[in-house]
């Protein structure tokens, strides 16, 4: 059992949780993820690590309630326990040797970007950051990132905060109008966003890294459910990733595979979450 040391609301249905998990923290690195499970009937769900402290033995996760299990997780409170919490899984991000990096985060994807920004800035890199969300309420970690980045740009779909539009609008502006040069672009967010970023940077040959979060069961290479085509080769996001060269990822396939259980999810959520409101299933 893994204790929730702290819980904070970051936005509508968006939560920050600090979890006591000394063994996960012991080897955790930016870019890696954990698998959680809430109950004996629960699914195993991957979440990227948002921050960690090896000495104090905790790991933080930031998530949005999008499916049944993340909604269930959102109902747990400070002091409650998560049944299973395994990790760190996946390959750590390689962040050494970059001088000028542009980090782009969309929605809850801003969370896994944060430890990378932190490490890059500690290593002395110049980090520019674009974060975006559908509206002001969904922008997270703005203060934390501001302190670590040379410049921070914000976009919201509805214009309620920052520039109205998408993160890619700002990206285009930086590259084409301001002629900014970057060694590396790191984009983490919805698949459509990462695809749009990669499609744009490809033309300028800017190395672009994306982080995938596909459906998986075990997270250790055992099921192969997370397979993704990268440069024409099948890779397992859990053990080969989760980060890949954005210019080589088959995003259309990844989006299609992400929707594999849409039908089942409808059954799952609509019936049970309303039932559960009454306290039993």
């Amino acid at each position, binding site marked *: 059992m893994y204790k929730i040391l702290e819980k904070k609301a970051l936005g509508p249905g968006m939560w920050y949780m600090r979890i006591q998990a000394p*063994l*996960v923290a*012991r*080897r955790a690195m930016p870019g890696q993820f954990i698998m959680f*499970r809430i109950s004996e*009937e*629960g*699914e*195993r769900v991957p979440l990227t690590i948002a921050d960690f402290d090896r000495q104090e033995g905790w790991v933080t996760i930031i998530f949005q309630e999008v499916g*049944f*299990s993340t909604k269930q997780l959102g109902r747990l409170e400070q002091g409650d326990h998560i*049944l*299973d*919490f*395994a*990790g*760190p*899984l996946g390959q750590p991000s390689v962040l050494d040797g970059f001088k000028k990096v542009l980090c782009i985060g969309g929605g809850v994807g801003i969370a896994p970007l944060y430890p990378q920004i932190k490490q890059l800035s500690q290593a002395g890199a110049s980090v520019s950051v674009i974060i975006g969300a559908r509206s002001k309420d969904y922008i997270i970690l703005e203060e934390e990132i501001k302190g670590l980045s040379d410049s921070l740009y914000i976009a919201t779909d509805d214009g309620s905060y920052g520039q109205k539009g998408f993160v890619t609008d700002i990206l285009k502006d930086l590259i084409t109008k301001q002629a900014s040069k970057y060694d590396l672009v790191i984009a983490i967010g919805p698949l459509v966003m990462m695809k749009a970023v990669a499609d744009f940077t490809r033309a300028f040959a800017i190395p672009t890294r994306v982080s995938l979060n596909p459906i998986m*069961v*075990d997270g*250790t*290479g*055992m*099921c*192969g*459910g997370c*397979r*993704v*085509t990268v440069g024409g080769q*099948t890779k397992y996001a859990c*053990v080969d990733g989760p980060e890949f060269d954005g210019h080589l990822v088959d995003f259309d*396939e990844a989006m*299609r*595979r992400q*929707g*594999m*259980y849409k039908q*089942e*999810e409808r*059954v*799952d959520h609509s*019936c*049970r979450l309303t039932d559960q409101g009454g306290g039993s*299933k």
Partner: protein
Amino acid sequence: MKLVFTKTPMREQDPLKRRNNFKEVNLGYSLEEALHEAKRCLQCKKPKCVKGCPVNVSIPDFIDAIVKGDLEKAYNIITTSNNLPAICGRVCPQEQQCEKQCILTTRGESVAIGRLERFVADSFLDSDIKADQEVKAKGKRVAVVGSGPAGLTAAGDLAKLGYDVTIFEAFHEPGGVLVYGIPEFRLPKDLVKKEIDKLKRLGVKFQMNTIIGKTLTIDDLFQDGFKAVFIGSGAGLPRFMGIDGENLNGVYSANEYLTRVNLMKAYDFPNSHTPVKLGEKIAVVGGGNVAMDAARSALRLGAREVHIIYRRSMEELPARSEEVHHAREEGVIFDVLINPKEIIGEDGWVKGLKCVKMELGEMDASGRKRPREIEGSEFIMDFDLVIMAIGTSPNPLIKASTPELETNDRGGILVDQETYATSMDRVYAGGDAVTGSATVIMAMGAGKRAAQAIDKRLSKE
């Protein structure tokens, strides 16, 4: 005494009923049936059956104890060499091991050793495993990586010898392939749990959610005070064919399909929260026990039609004959001498399988006739779900974090054939992590021998 040349039959669930439920297919012997069967044993002076058993259970002795009505003695004889008899009695390929060596096979059917083992084990599911003599705690810690058959066996034997054993398991539940792979209808999970509980009572500690190679490395284990490590991490990496269409929605590895259904209980969706695609007409590619397990699970989940697609003929099917027989009884269709060339999709979902007909040629290295394509014989079959059950490779996580651990070109950990010692001092390995996918009992045999070698190594200090 009159010799009987046929096995006492074991009662089974009716095929038409059982194809709709996940309850165990085989129902086991009654005491009367067990006695009847036990009396068939000729009590050979030089029993060959014992040599056929990878863990050398004293088979005639435990059968003799059954005949004499002393089931407890029979149980103690079995558990001296085998910590998991209720499991072995169900999933061992006895017909290729102990029973194959039985003298009765020269005239008819062997003694049903597996069924008798199961009968004895099931009578003592709630009792303790006894250590052979009064063992003194040795005060030395041994780490076991993986809680499948190899790891459980090594852990049990080391605990019996007085070692302080901790098993590290990546999943949330112990048992490895016994819980994620082999389905409930062949190996009830309650029973696996009871066998594991016995090991816990013997003093073996279990640490779940700990992925060796990620959460902790082998070096961490030594730093944390373990004196030796046994790696039984299994063959967790599913193989695909490398044909077009394998990433379509509706294509599973057998590993994923079975893990969703067994470990994550997708058969009980939505009460259990993990879904699995049900499918109407399902192709299972492969002919081993895992393919049979996937096909029979698919029937139980309500598929209208389930086909085994196998590139050789019925005779070469690597699955146990009992599994093939059960699958056929339940209605699984066998399409043999056929090989998939491409998975055909529509709107991103599986629509069918483009196959080619095969014929058998000369013998290959495996001693089986080599299948080859019949030119121009391609044809298409409609399916809405495809399950790839063509084998697995050893899990690469430990190797990736432990470069000094030597492996072969297929990822299997290299070990000494006698001691199961790896290229690293104090590190031993066995089971599928070494051999690639094999059987439960082979893994147990390796765990057993490695435990002896570890004891020998640590006794020197």
